[in-house]
């Protein structure tokens, strides 16, 4: 019995030594779990930046998409008195109290990925991410330059503010006529809906790659219209990346979440040294993945950087 007792004590002491922490510089509180492929890229951005900037960081996230738990993590971070806190802001109402407490305690906060509308009024210093409207504009401009005149914007969740903005921005950047096609999020239904509209358009933009992008691609292919109808999409998926490498897709709009993880750390590193801080939104997108660079992106995606 004694032996077990002593082993337990020894194990715990070892555990304690190995996890004992030193002063932390930046704590990231994100709503994205590291086991999500999108967020694991962002976390890699955070980790790389910490190494490059030679500061100490930590990436934390609640176990599930739970704003209450996330608010607690922000409070937790504040109690550690870091030099800066990076957060995502998917729900300003639920997180507002904790964010304001952080700022009131004298800890600067930078937001990333979500919350471009709300960050300023909470007192957050800067936002790093892709604003949907501007990304849509970029996509529209690119399609216009490719010669598109009549476009279809496929929105698979009408009412989702971010998605609605993407189509609105696209309309502005495109210039020509744009019809917004609202669908469900069932891939078969999306494919059918798009197929029905193929006759009147030369450009299609989808707002999600794996779901609506690939469904639209299938519709175009079955109608044999690859090449005559230009397809672009927001976000990335392995299927769409492959199609881009094969020249079947005009572009993918990459919000470059690696930068969303990297840049806030870099910003705080400089803030800690020289007190500098960008004002407003630092845009990480739209980054365009085209047939020209698709194969490289595929390689980097496999390594976790895109």
């Amino acid at each position: 019995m004694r032996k077990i007792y002593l082993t337990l004590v020894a194990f715990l002491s070892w555990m304690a030594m190995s996890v004992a922490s030193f002063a932390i510089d930046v704590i990231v509180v994100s709503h994205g779990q590291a086991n999500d492929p999108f967020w694991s890229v962002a976390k890699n951005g955070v980790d790389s930046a910490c190494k490059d900037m030679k500061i100490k960081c930590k990436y934390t996230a609640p176990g599930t998409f739970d704003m209450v738990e996330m608010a607690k993590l922000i409070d937790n971070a504040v109690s550690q008195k870091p030099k800066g806190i990076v957060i995502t802001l998917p729900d300003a109402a639920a997180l507002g109290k904790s964010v304001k407490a952080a700022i009131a305690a004298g800890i600067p906060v930078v937001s990333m990925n979500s919350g471009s509308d709300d960050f300023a009024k909470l007192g957050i210093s800067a936002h790093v991410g892709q604003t949907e409207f501007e990304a849509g504009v970029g996509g529209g401009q690119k399609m216009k330059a490719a010669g598109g005149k009549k476009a279809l914007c496929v929105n698979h969740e009408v009412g989702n503010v971010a998605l609605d903005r993407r189509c609105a921005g696209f309309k502005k950047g495109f210039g020509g006529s744009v019809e917004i096609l609202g669908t469900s999020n069932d891939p078969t239904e999306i494919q059918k809906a798009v197929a029905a509209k193929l006759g009147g358009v030369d450009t299609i933009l989808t707002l999600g790659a794996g779901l609506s992008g690939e469904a639209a691609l299938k519709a175009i292919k079955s109608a044999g219209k690859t090449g005559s109808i230009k397809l672009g999409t927001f976000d990335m998926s392995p299927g769409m990346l492959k199609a881009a490498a094969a020249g079947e897709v005009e572009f993918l709009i990459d919000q470059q979440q690696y930068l969303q993880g990297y840049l806030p750390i870099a910003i705080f590193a400089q803030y800690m040294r020289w007190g500098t801080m960008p004002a407003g939104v630092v845009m990480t997108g739209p980054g365009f993945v085209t047939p020209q660079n698709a194969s490289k992106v595929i390689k980097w995606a496999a390594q976790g950087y895109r």
Partner: protein
Amino acid sequence: MSVKSKSIQNKSKDERLRKVSNLKVLLNRPELGALGGSVLVFIFFGIVAGDTGMFSAYGTINFLEVSANLGIIAIAAALLMIGGEFDLSVGSMIGFAGICIAIPAIYWGWPLWSSILFAFSMAVLVGYANGILVVRTGLPSFIVTLAMLFILRGATLALTRLITGRTQVPGLRVLIENDPIAWIFSADAFKGVFTWLGSLGLIALRQDGTPLATGIPASVLWWVGMTIFATWLLMKTRYGNWIFASGGDKLGARNVGVPVGRVKISLFIGTAVAATIYACVQVLDAGSADTMRGFLKELEAIVAAVVGGCLLTGGYGSAIGAAFGALIFGTVSMGIYYTDVDTDWFKVFLGAMMLIAVIFNNFIRRRVTENK
């Protein structure tokens, strides 16, 4: 250093009776393991994270809040477990209660206090349903409440989408201001003490001079209050004896006249009401309700109760133990963020600490009951 135990006179001639110290008598209690586990956890984090701010006022309130929320449902789960049953629907009830509070207040214009009362009456109904099904059908409560878990979670999602078109109901924060009941679940207590401590510079301050930690959250007071109430109930009332009896030997208890059915039904109502208290605290804190709230919380409540010394087979346990079990859980959940452990390892860490706490608990209990 030994003191005569609480035995009756003229027992001193009994050669089987040793003079047992009062300490040993105390150690015999089911809570001891959980208390020991708590101490162990605090020592661990004291070493590992002592100067990180975990034990500052703000940091302490942070992990106490998590412990308190879990404690509220763990104590009810412990009482039910002592009574021989499980309630797996607690997590779904939390979500359901949340929308029972939010939807009438935001969409039907009810005053917040009446929404809260509405949620509690739904809790009584759900608890009663669980109880009556278990008692009448004789099915294991595991199965019945598992079915209720799905039913409630599905109803929460379906009804919310039906009425609101979304899965979240925000906008409650403004309603809390003048409501007669809401403050019971959301206010901070002892604000004055914290302001005074802040003025003395003993705790961290915001830039405007007010203390960072504004007071003891209501959930902590609920946790402590429920622990005291549940302990009194178990140890000092007839009903408490009935709970032990119903869990220890259902048939035997019934045969001597214990109303086992009524006891179990009331215990199920207890867990549903506790889930609703949790939901009130959470909804008023976040200012919104969400259909996915409370997911898997019933398992955490059961773990806290078991760490606290409750036997899974029923008939033995304590509410104080469950309260400490919740404390361990909350401290570990929040404590890990103060360490250098990459949060990818978080779940491993949490599971390992829970296992250690339970083994330690078991070790203490065996050592003491066999070492008499």
